Structure formats: structure tokens, C-alpha cells
């Protein structure tokens, strides 16, 4: 990996080519109605933007590695609902638990919406969209449509039925845990969270499980000066799923945004993270650890990241690790854009795949676009197999081969896991990964 300061032409144009036949979009929207009530103006605006940009097609550069058809289809294919077969990842941790079933808030299954220092409401129950949430809903999403179009995020802003509106005025004593559950076999779940971290406050948001046979989620996060937002998401082994998720974040001066996602198996997933570093001395970290096994169902996992540095002395890190086998496909599209004047930027990006067989593949497109002259940006991408020497070393000490491979997979993922700051949460993820790997989730 070399330190680079390269100016590249914009290689991520907006949706290109002739406008899509309106029929495809109409068919996609046929089963949807614009929800009445809150955020009507933002929803109508998003619907109009979606109409203008249309759905992505096979020739769209931004969708070169991931076929959008499953997201374009009018309805999802039904998927069986797996039986819960293990203790939920964050059980036993002191937290506020909020349950969503197929993207709709389940009040009965959730804790009361009460947490010291935090205002929590649900999108479905929100009033006409006044106040802080009204200033935010769909706003970061709309800003995130340039320079690349993200039609499924606009679709979400227009049609999402539920989600959380969270405003953090003072750091709460415990994290919020959003638990997603499946309700029916063919639900098309769409939810949208809006989060505002006020000056100097801090929140950890945990998310586990999946909603719907197909899901479309958007999280808009606005972190005010000196605030901190931690997001730790885990999608577990037994959930077959098709989903697209977007996180749009705006990070003010001296604020921090840190997200980590663990994803194990599934079918087709695309996660887009769009971060606007807007204030000086801010920090944004995005990381993911992905285990994909294509044996039972085709596995395709796409992480697409776009970080814009618009202020001085800011740091961004992207750490993506994918372990792939049985014909699994991993995708990484990561971009760092440094705007004119964003001096002393420190941008780092690494994407790596560990291929456990020769049938799996990793497609990576790292990009740097830099318009400031005093910056440090580096990117690297590697694809490799299990290191024979390390495997022999472990086995020569008596560690059985299967266990040695678990060690080496954990070793490969370590840099991504290190991005989880909380020791207790990270330890739980390690333990769970160990169990999953030992149960042959990936070997």
C-alpha cells in the first residue's frame, strides 16, 4: 500500500443512459402508498427526486458489481423465517431495547421510550414533521444524492412507514438496541431512523437481526460539535436476507462518527455509507467484518462508502474485511473525496478479502479524489488465501486444523473488530464469531 495523493477524474457518475422506462418504476411503486401524516413535504420531494432519477439499470457504473434487480423487483421473493437458534448477541448488556417487526415498531415487545438525556419517538407516530426531526428527515439523504444518485434511499424517504426519531441532548447511561425481527415470509420492510446528537453528547446505537424478506433502511445521523455517535450492527448467520441500507451522516467540528457492521451469510446485501465531514478536527470511521458462505444460498455482499472531507484536520478510516467461500462474492466501492481547502486531511482506506476457496471472488474499487495539497491519504486492497506458514505454525503446536483456521480468520478480521471501541461489545462479537466459525459457518 502506498501513500497516494492522486487526483482522479470522477469515476462515479450519476445514473447514466437513457431514462428508464417509467413502467419499471411504476411497477416498483405499485404496491406502495405515500404515508399520510408526518414529513409529507419531505416525502413528496423524495418521490419527485426518485421519479427524476429512476431505478438503476445494469449499465449504471455505480451498480457495476451488484445486480439491482432484486431491489428493483415490485415485490420480494418469500423467504422462510428462521427459528431463533441462539442467544441474541447483546443479551445481558444494560440497554434500552426497541423491537421492530418487518420494519414497524412493536411497542408491546419494546422497553418504554424513556432514556435520560434522549428524546425518542417513532416515525409512524410523529406529528406533522415539525421541530428538529422535520429539519433533518430526508435532508441528509437528499444531500447525499450528489455526486452519485442513490435511488433506493429516495424511495425509502418517500415511503418508509416507521423508524426512530432520536435526539440526544445529554449522554445516556446505556446504549439503545434496535432489534429487528421477521413477521411474515414476504414482507417488504422499509424503515428510516433520524438521529441528532447535540453538542458534546454521545450515543451508542446497537442494531441486530433483520426485518422483512427484503429490507430497505435509511439512517440519517447529524452529529453536532463535539458529539459522538457509535453504531454497531450485526446481522446473524441464520437469517436469509435481501437488503439495501444507507447511512447518511453529517459530522460537525470535533465530532466523531464510528460505525461497525458484522454480517454473516445471507443472500444479497448492499450497504451504502455516505459521510459528510463538515467541521474541523472531526473523525469518521466505518468498518465491517463479513463472513460469506455461498453454499446454501448465493452470497453477494456489497459495501459502498463515500466520505467527503470538507474541513481541516479531519480523519477518516475505512476498514473492510470479507471472508468468502463456496462461490461467495464480496464487493467494496470506497471513495475519499477531499474538497478544496480541506487541508491536513488524514484519510485511510483498506479493503481485504480472505478467500477460502478458488470459486469465491472479491471486487474492489478504491478511489481517491483530492483537491487540497496538504493531505495524507492512503488506500489499499488485497485478496488472499489462508497463510500456509501460519496454519502450519498453529498445527505444529497441536491446534487441530479446523481450529487453526478459526484462529486465522479471527486474525484476519482483527483490524475491523478493533474499530469497535467498547471492550465489552467487542468481546461479545469475538465470542459470537468464534462460535459461528466453530460451527462451520464459514470453514
Amino acid at each position, binding site marked *: 500500500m502506498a501513500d497516494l495523493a492522486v487526483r482522479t477524474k470522477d469515476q462515479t457518475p450519476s445514473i447514466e443512459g437513457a431514462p428508464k422506462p417509467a413502467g419499471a418504476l411504476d411497477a416498483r411503486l405499485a404496491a406502495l402508498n405515500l404515508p399520510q401524516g408526518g414529513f409529507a413535504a419531505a416525502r413528496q420531494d423524495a418521490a419527485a427526486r426518485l421519479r427524476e432519477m429512476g431505478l438503476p439499470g445494469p449499465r449504471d457504473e455505480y451498480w457495476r458489481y451488484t445486480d439491482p434487480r432484486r431491489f428493483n423487483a415490485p415485490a420480494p421473493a418469500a423467504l422462510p423465517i428462521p427459528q431463533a437458534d441462539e442467544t441474541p448477541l447483546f443479551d445481558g448488556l444494560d440497554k434500552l431495547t426497541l423491537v421492530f417487526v418487518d420494519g414497524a415498531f412493536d411497542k408491546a415487545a419494546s422497553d418504554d421510550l424513556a432514556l435520560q438525556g434522549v428524546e425518542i419517538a417513532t416515525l409512524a407516530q410523529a406529528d406533522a414533521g415539525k421541530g428538529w426531526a422535520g429539519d433533518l428527515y430526508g435532508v441528509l439523504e437528499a444531500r447525499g444524492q450528489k455526486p452519485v444518485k442513490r435511488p433506493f434511499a429516495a424511495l425509502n424517504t418517500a415511503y418508509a412507514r416507521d423508524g426512530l426519531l432520536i435526539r440526544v441532548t445529554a449522554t445516556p447511561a446505556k446504549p439503545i438496541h434496535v432489534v429487528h425481527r421477521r413477521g411474515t415470509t414476504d414482507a417488504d420492510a422499509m424503515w428510516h431512523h433520524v438521529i441528532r446528537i447535540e453538542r458534546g453528547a454521545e450515543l451508542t446505537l446497537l442494531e441486530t437481526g433483520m426485518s422483512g424478506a427484503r429490507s430497505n433502511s435509511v439512517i440519517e445521523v447529524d452529529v453536532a460539535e463535539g458529539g459522538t455517535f457509535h453504531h454497531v450492527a450485526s446481522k446473524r448467520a441464520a437469517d436469509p436476507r435481501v437488503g439495501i441500507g444507507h447511512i447518511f451522516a453529517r459530522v460537525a467540528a470535533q465530532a466523531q462518527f464510528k460505525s461497525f457492521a458484522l454480517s454473516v451469510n445471507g443472500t444479497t446485501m448492499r450497504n451504502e455509507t455516505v459521510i459528510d465531514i463538515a467541521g474541523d478536527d472531526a473523525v469518521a470511521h466505518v468498518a465491517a467484518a463479513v463472513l460469506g458462505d455461498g453454499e446454501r444460498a448465493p452470497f453477494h455482499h456489497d459495501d459502498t462508502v463515500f466520505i467527503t472531507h470538507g474541513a481541516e484536520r479531519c480523519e477518516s478510516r475505512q476498514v473492510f474485511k470479507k471472508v468468502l467461500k463456496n462461490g461467495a462474492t464480496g464487493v467494496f466501492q470506497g471513495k475519499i473525496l477531499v474538497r478544496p481547502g480541506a487541508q491536513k486531511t488524514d484519510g485511510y482506506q483498506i479493503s481485504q478479502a480472505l478467500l477460502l476457496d478458488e470459486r469465491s471472488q472479491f471486487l474492489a474499487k478504491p478511489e481517491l479524489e483530492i483537491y487540497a495539497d496538504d493531505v495524507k491519504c492512503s488506500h489499499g486492497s488485497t485478496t488472499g488465501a489462508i*497463510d*500456509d*506458514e*501460519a496454519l*502450519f*505454525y*498453529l*498445527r*505444529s*503446536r*497441536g*491446534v*487441530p*486444523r479446523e*481450529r*487453526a483456521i478459526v*484462529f*486465522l480468520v*479471527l*486474525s*484476519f*478480521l*482483527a*483490524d475491523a*473488530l478493533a474499530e469497535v471501541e467498547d471492550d465489552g461489545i467487542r468481546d461479545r462479537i469475538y465470542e459470537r464469531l468464534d462460535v459461528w466459525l466453530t460451527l462451520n459457518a464459514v470453514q
Partner: protein
Amino acid sequence: MLKIDNLHVKLEEEDKQILKGLSLEVPAGQVHAIMGPNGSGKSTLSYVLSGRDGYDVTEGSASLDGESLLDMEPEERAAAGLFLAFQYPVEIPGVGNMTFLRTAVNAQRKARGQDELSSGDFLKLVRAKAAELQISPDMLKRPVNVGFSGGEKKRNEILQMAMLEPRMCIMDETDSGLDVDAMRLVSDGVNALRSPDRSFLVITHYQRLLNHIQPDVVHIMADGRIVKSGGPELALQVEQEGYGDLLSEAR
């Protein structure tokens, strides 16, 4: 203990013969040293005995306590009592030294039908042995060999040896990259493990390690074979005269 008979080995990928009829016997409780010029096959011997991939045994045998080693997986050889101290111990980021060691100890115990050590017993044992080798608690917590100096890596190898209590220890140029103090620590660690039912095969380029770990027998290896065996004085002769005379004499 260890018996190697007429061992012929070639590299799998290229048709290159490395060991050409090597025979050697290390009785229980003895320390044997192997010296030889670069390319004589010393490291290959240690890898073949411990089961690394990439080598083809075309003829001959190697056994530990009468049990053939060559058909066993590396982990089975370890459980049978074989240990290789690596010339270049491998760094494994993200895996704690202690976790790795406990997994190894208990995997071997399980393979031998013994009860696994409890966390408490293991901790007590590893702390005591680490202290003898001047390995700090911090080194035990760090990922395997990551950020360790050359000397620390070799001491870590000896710690593994002390915890796993193998019957047959092969040491592949353990002295390479060690300063005088580290060499003394490592040697003291090895000497503390010497016992009537444990044997050592010490591969080295230099006589100086053998001042600390005194061998019963010294073998000179060249071109894939043992060409001469003798007492500790043979190592001194190599140190003073080089291999030239010994090798031409053997031819």
C-alpha cells in the same frame, strides 16, 4: 526415541532432492546437535519431521517411540510429543498469546485422552513458566509474536515448549538473531527442560549455542545426509576449521 532411517525427501513443486538417505537416532534423554553448511537440508529435515506441506518423502522412515511420524498430521505429531521451535516464529495478529497457548495445551491433552486444564490451573502454570523465561504478563496478553523482538520471539518458543512438555524437541537455528543475554535465557530454559525421557535435536550454524546447551552427540550434515558424527569436540573442530576438511574427508 527419534529414529530416522534412510530418509529421502524432495520438494513437491520442483523435482529437487533435498534429503538423500539421512539416518539418525536420538535416544531418550540425549541432546544431539546437527551442524552443516547452508543448503545441506537442515531446515528441510525439521519441517519434514514436523509435517509441513510441500515435501515428498520418496524413501525411508521416521518414527517417534516406534510410531511412524510421516503419516500423521502436524497436530497429531505434536500430540505424540514432537515439538519444533521455529527459526522464524510466525506473527498472528488478533490472536492472544495466552488463548493460543491454552488452546494448544488443551488440544494436545484431549488428543492424549487427558483432562483439559482449567483456566485457573493454566493461568497459574503459564505465569510461573513465563516468569522463569522473563516473559512479562504483557507479552502473554499480546497477540502471538506481534511486536516481539527477535529474542522475545525465541523465548516465547521456549515458553510454548515448557507448557506443551514435548518428549522430542527440534530446535531450528534457535540461536539466530539472539544477543548474548537472550541466548543465555533461552539456553537456561532449554536446560531446565532436560530430563531422562526428553530428547533434543538442536540445529545450528554455530558452536557457541552448544557452549550453553551441551550436546551428547554432534552430527555434521552435508548434501542431504549425515556425513560424520562425534562428541562435542566435533563442533569445536567446525568452529575452528570450517566444514571444508570434514566434508572432503567424508567424501
